[in-house]
């Protein structure tokens, strides 16, 4: 009879209404993930031999690494390793092809970020492993560190003068110094840049100075 199908359908939905719900309540109740679940890619820095198998096999250029060759032992040493997760396809090729099994997927799938930059993950060489590197690199690194710390000290002492020199404009230097006085992070960044790449430092400082000048047209206005 016409209509029995409709009633049967109603019966099905009515039956399920009083059944137990199958919902997993996510933030409180984490899902049970299988062992092979591919969440976030992780690297064991110490085991990596910088053979670049993973970067070659990756279909989409997710992985990149920097390494130095130790002339004495003729072995490569990993300097830094970056995983740009926003291009990953979770194909597992890198994990399969790693001869040292130092790449693996963990079970973390909560990767949401406000900023695209935060998705990229960079592994720097840990401090205790720096001494492991060839001598001249260690020496260069140490020298660099020293110069940076000296520069930071100088900037903290007499920022307007140094910045003015950098920008070749004393007014701007003053404005920037005032703006940076409260922002220690930026100050340090500029110091690092001044040591490593003076041209870049000039550009960045110029941009920052312009921004500071725009935000606070007169120096007196700045509320400390």
């Amino acid at each position: 009879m016409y209509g029995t199908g409709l009633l049967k359908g109603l019966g099905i939905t009515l039956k399920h209404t009083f059944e137990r719900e199958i919902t997993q309540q996510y933030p409180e109740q984490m899902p049970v993930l299988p062992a092979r679940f591919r969440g976030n890619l992780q690297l064991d820095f110490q085991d990596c031999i910088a053979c670049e198998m993973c970067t070659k096999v990756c279909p989409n250029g997710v992985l990149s690494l920097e390494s130095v060759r130790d002339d004495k032992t003729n072995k490569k040493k990993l300097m830094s390793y970056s995983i740009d997760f926003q291009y990953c396809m979770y194909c597992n090729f890198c994990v399969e092809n790693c001869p040292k099994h130092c790449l693996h997927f963990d079970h973390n799938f909560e990767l949401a970020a406000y900023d695209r930059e935060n998705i990229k993950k960079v592994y720097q060489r840990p401090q205790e492993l720096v001494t492991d590197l060839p001598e001249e690199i260690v020496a260069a690194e140490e020298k660099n560190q020293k110069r940076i710390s000296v520069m930071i000290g100088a900037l903290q002492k007499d920022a307007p003068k140094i910045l003015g020199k950098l920008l070749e404009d004393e007014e701007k230097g003053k404005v920037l110094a005032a703006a940076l006085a409260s922002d220690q992070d930026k100050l340090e960044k500029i110091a690092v840049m001044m040591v490593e790449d003076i041209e870049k430092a000039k550009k960045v400082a110029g941009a920052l100075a312009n921004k500071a000048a725009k935000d606070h047209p007169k120096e007196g206005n700045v509320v400390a």
Partner: protein
Amino acid sequence: MLQTDQYNINIGPIHPSTHGGLHVEAVMDGETIVDAIVHVGYVHRAVEKIAESRTYTQFIPYASRLDYLASHLPTMGYVQTVEKMLDIHVPERAEYIRIIMGEFSRIASHILFVGSLAIDLGATTGFTYCMRDREKILDLFEMTSGQRMIASYMRFGGFAEDLPEEFIPAARNFLKNIPQMFDEYNHLLSGNEILQARLKNIGVLSAEDAINYGITGPNLRASGVDYDLRKAEPYGIYDRFAFDVPLGEKGDNYDRFMVRLQEIEQSGRIITQALDQLPEGEIRAKIPRIVKPEKGLEVYHRIESAKGELGYYIVSDGGEKPYRLHVRAPSFINLMVLPLISRGGKLQDIIANIATLDPVLGEADR
């Protein structure tokens, strides 16, 4: 007779029932469709061009992303094509697992078809029940490869890893529940008079037209043409299994719906047999690390995907990367029949027509 004006209405590209980025420009007279113009290309991701800049191995995850509803099937097609080029023999166990994963993919795709048809017709609850059942298959995929939908599990010569221990009991458990699942769908959807009125005798595609347009897969079989690549030209080890090819009579929307429902059952039969016969042994053949087919080799290989005949045509120039890779996408070709079956119907029919043709735009636009 009153003079009426025709007007154009754009269904899509952003519209809830166009299955992604399909754009149908409907020429309407009131609620009656005079003509429908299909615009594709909104999800054109240049996959074929990307293939030319990737090595043979690196293209495997891209192949999975063609038909993302049944990701194992397009991967299987691609992998088998390259194996044909290189003349690799796949171990028995891997062949069986390929059948199992492929048929599970087909079931997943068809279940989603049922669900999306239900939601396109306005029966939201049918959709959630279908998704609930599909989750069980996705769990199986996740168990084997760690990814729910797009597994990238197959490799040249076999598989990346063997099946985990808990897979077979879980798979058998799913198969056991198929009759119960069917009971529910039949009562809630296919037995529903409203749904029958919406689908029966709508969007009729005659066998002749279907063949002329090059329609393949369930859509062709719904028109009554007995053509299934698994039977007609068995690839892999499909010749070892007993299964039926469900056929429709009229080629209307209801037949397309029912053929897919019955195919779920047949896929279940195949998986049961494959699980029973599953041999122990190697999971992956020994293949060279760098895949380099001979220069000037051209291969075409086709499989019966969830949507129809999925073919890969690969030309090699002797390098690590294919010189040209072409995909014969069933969704694209099936979609071209939409104007023919929609003419003279109502606006609501075109929604049902799109749903029952079951295009995957990722595959159609590539």
